[in-house]
């Protein structure tokens, strides 16, 4: 039973991981990645980590939702209405991927891995909680500060109007060719956006 589930879930994880880079629609790509994460989360449950496994699913559902929003926002042809290939150094990347896989597999097969299973009946979530509030308390609080820094950094970088006015005043878009005409937005519009709405 466990083996069959593991086989099905790992096939799903790898297949949808591969599809991420093969589909035209950015929404599909993000949610394929989400499916891959869900499969890995369920495998983690099989590996006796019921908390980490399920929590992965719920964290990744949210993160991939946000991922999809940004993918659609910034990618050309986000729905893949025209078929497209947007890759560079393709051969090299395939080779690197295969070498990474082969190398890791060889390392796994060749090395002598220690065996010590999770004991039956251990409440792993409780252990994790004690770890968090005990020995790893500092890590936990540091994570808090890191997340705060992330929040502030993300807001500073992404919000348009800070205290000092629009963040893009005076900037120029790059040329489509080196030294060419600025692409898209014309420079004379660059600093004169109308900040309506509020």
């Amino acid at each position, binding site marked *: 039973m466990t083996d069959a589930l593991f086989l099905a879930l790992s096939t799903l994880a790898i297949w949808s991981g591969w599809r991420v880079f093969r589909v035209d629609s950015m929404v599909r790509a993000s949610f394929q990645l989400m499916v891959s994460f869900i499969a890995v989360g369920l495998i983690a449950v099989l590996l006796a980590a019921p908390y980490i496994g399920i929590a992965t699913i719920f964290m990744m559902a949210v993160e991939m939702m946000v991922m999809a929003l940004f993918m659609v926002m910034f990618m050309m042809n986000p729905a893949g209405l*025209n*078929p497209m290939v947007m890759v560079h150094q393709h051969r090299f990347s395939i080779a690197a991927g295969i070498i990474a896989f082969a190398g890791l597999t060889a390392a796994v097969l060749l090395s002598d891995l220690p065996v010590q299973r999770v004991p039956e009946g251990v409440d792993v979530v409780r252990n994790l909680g004690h770890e968090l509030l005990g020995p790893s308390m500092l890590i936990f609080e540091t994570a808090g500060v890191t997340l705060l820094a992330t929040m502030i950094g993300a807001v500073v970088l992404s919000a*348009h109007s800070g205290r000092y006015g629009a963040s893009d005043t005076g900037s120029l878009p790059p040329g489509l060719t080196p030294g060419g005409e600025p692409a898209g*937005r014309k420079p004379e519009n660059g600093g004169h*956006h109308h900040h*309506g*709405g509020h």
Partner: protein
Amino acid sequence: MAMNWLSALARGAEIPVFAVVGAQGLAPVEGLRHRPGLRLVDSPRHARVLLVAGAVDGAHKTALERLHAQIPTPRGTVWWQAAPLFARGQGVAGDDPLPAIRAAAGADDPDQRPDVPPHPWQGMGPHGQGGRGMMGGNPYGRPMAMTADDIRDGLALDVYNARFGPFLPMLPPGLVLDLTLQGDVIVSVSVVSPPFEQGMQGDAPDLCAARMLRLMGIAPRAARARGALLALPKGSGTRRRLAAWLRGQTVTERPSPLPEALPGLEWAEAVLWLASFLPSHLRAACMPRQAA
């Protein structure tokens, strides 16, 4: 067997009706809302019968035909106190369209528009489906949206240009707007044709309040409606006007011209703003040049 059983069950169902509101049609359609045996729906996709209530002028014939085509087949049409613009369905002159709607629920009108894609596209591009490059061509009959400047946050992302109306249920009936949207924010507006004349009945405070509250998701009952004011920003015009209607007063404020007022508003705000004026005032605001 199961199919017969389903059909027998379906015979007692309410008929889903998409109401196209023409001139003087607002109040009669409002009266249909609580009639048993039919249900007014917001989208033609959910409907079985197209009900044209009140006169629709010939300029909107194509729009009406498009709407007619969007009702899944089989479909029926009823013209209620309206001159038929095309030869489908039957007309009703009296006060009660229900028998005609029942009859139309058994009808099957053929399409009124020719079956051609909006733009030719098949076999135009290298993949046989209309696109050259990533953004070019007309894949599936339409071009893709292109970037343009935004008025709010300076991210030049895609704009969506479209003609909205005349029969969108959340806009005043008859109003046709050419809108440019970035996301759900309106960037620019031009008025193509003004809302239909609704007469004195259309300006009744309770009817206006009911329309606005329906857009905010509740049925108009006094006790609930009081709380509805809290949902709108304090001091905003929409809140002031809704409050006046709920007190049973007539709103005297007149809207500023739409191309100045709407840009920068988010979709829900814009819809509520439009619904917060008397239909007659809104009509007047949309047609100063024609009057002059």
